[in-house]
């Protein structure tokens, strides 16, 4: 299996931080697609033949009450959870390996609801952001740029998760999700814990990235008002998604 260099968005970015000589000519069409996904935990069937797709450059909102399986679907789409049945395709290529065995894994960024559970408590804030770059053996400049873009000051870089607020930690998690320039971003209740201003700021940063890189965004939330504003009406209700199976 080749080294996991993920396909880049078409936009040429002269003098950008990419030094690894990424593959060029990313697939023109495609999308992140889930078809007939079924997941059970024990006897409890969480997802039953669910289908959903996100095209590059679009925002899809996914609404539904808590406990309906939204987060499980997010984990399947981020290739972190292997479904019992169904297929996931990334830009036309079917996914065959999951978790660390998925070469397409870095093409998909995932932002979780609770930043505190999504970071290693021993890492500093800067380590949190830089970790994907280190794992991919890329220069760390981009981590500095992203931290700045997300409103994290250098004095926060050395702090550990317990020394910063939820809002500051979630900013670091958004920066981390953007480090490897993913083609798709899944935001799973990303702003539920945050105040209105931080919410608007983080959504604004993700929108700026989407417009620049042409990434597809799946915004998952139980907040219909937020989704309608963010996805400009392109919102799937959970029941519809199920019915589409």
């Amino acid at each position: 299996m080749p080294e996991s260099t993920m396909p880049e968005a078409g936009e040429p970015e002269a003098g950008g931080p990419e030094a690894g000589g990424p593959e060029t000519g990313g697939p023109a069409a495609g999308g992140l697609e889930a078809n007939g996904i079924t997941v059970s935990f024990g006897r409890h069937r969480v997802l039953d033949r669910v289908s959903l797709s996100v095209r590059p450059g679009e925002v899809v909102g996914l609404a539904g009450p808590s406990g309906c399986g939204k987060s499980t679907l997010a984990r399947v789409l981020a290739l972190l959870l292997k479904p019992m049945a169904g297929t996931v395709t990334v830009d036309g290529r079917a996914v065959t390996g999951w978790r660390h065995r998925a070469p397409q894994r870095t093409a998909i960024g995932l932002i979780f609801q609770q930043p505190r559970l999504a970071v290693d408590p021993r890492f500093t804030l800067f380590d949190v952001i830089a970790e994907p770059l280190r794992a991919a053996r890329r220069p760390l400049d981009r981590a500095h740029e992203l931290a700045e873009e997300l409103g994290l000051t250098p004095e926060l870089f050395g702090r550990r998760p317990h020394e910063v607020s939820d809002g500051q930690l979630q900013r670091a998690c958004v920066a981390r999700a953007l480090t490897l320039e993913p083609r798709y971003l899944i935001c799973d209740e990303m702003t539920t814990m945050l105040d209105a201003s931080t919410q608007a700021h983080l959504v604004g940063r993700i929108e700026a990235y989407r417009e620049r890189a042409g990434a597809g965004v799946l915004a998952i939330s139980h907040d219909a008002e937020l989704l309608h504003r963010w996805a400009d009406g392109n919102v799937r209700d959970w029941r519809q998604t199920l019915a589409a199976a």
Partner: protein
Amino acid sequence: MKLRVDGLSVRFHLPGAEVHAVTDARFELREGRCLALVGESGCGKSVMAHALLGLLPGNATVTGHAWLDGGDDPLDLVAAPEKVLARQVRGRLIGLIPQSPAAHLTPVRTARAQLAETLRELGRTETPDLLADRAGLRPDDLDRYPHQLSGGMAQRVANALALAGDPPLIVADEPTTGLDRPLVDATMAELRRLCDDGRAVLVITHDLRAAERVADEIAVMYASRIVELSQAEPFFSGPLHPYSRGLLDALPSRRFVPIPGRPPELTRLPDGCAFLPRCPLATAACEDQPLMNGKKVACHHA
């Protein structure tokens, strides 16, 4: 019953730094009223709640007063010794509805066991079932362990625990974090009902829409200070402080634009107005700390 917070300040002492968590807070809360304390994360809202209950860690210094006036002898929650807080205040005069109720419960004991223990400690004669019924739980729900409770049920168990001692003042610290909208609305309706029953309710939240559903009054906190204290209706139709305006404008139902810049570190607050670097109205006058002084807003330009 009346709570009168008068010049309350909280400082945390860290090696090489001092955190100004709450500075000179002043407000009043009477029975049958609900005050919502709103603001960005890390502005000091939750510290206020913990200060009232005497639940701050050892490196905190609290100054000022928080008078709890129940008729005869007003009690200063700041000066009260731990014994008084433990035996007379917590659970009896002030009930706490905690952030993330599921995490607040003991994971290895059923809801019933925890309710029974609380009732016993408070010397109450009611049964857990009666309490649960009042909080909208079925008796068999009580036989579940915390991990078997849904978010809504855990919330109701937390409410039942907070109400076990029939306290006249309820402090709800981010009671809706992580709940979905119908559950937020249900929780707020429940708090409103407690209020209408004659209790005083202090809600601490970052969720402005939740605050709008329940509060009679809104206190906006920014960088450790209360910068606006208004009746809820005029607040949501025409906030006075530029920070309040920015917060409301950030809502997805309004302009959905963030306030530029970022809040200051509580270890290095400026001498002047802490909102100055982010404020569209800032002038040289803002180098002087604006104070409430009995007005509704702490701003030179509002």
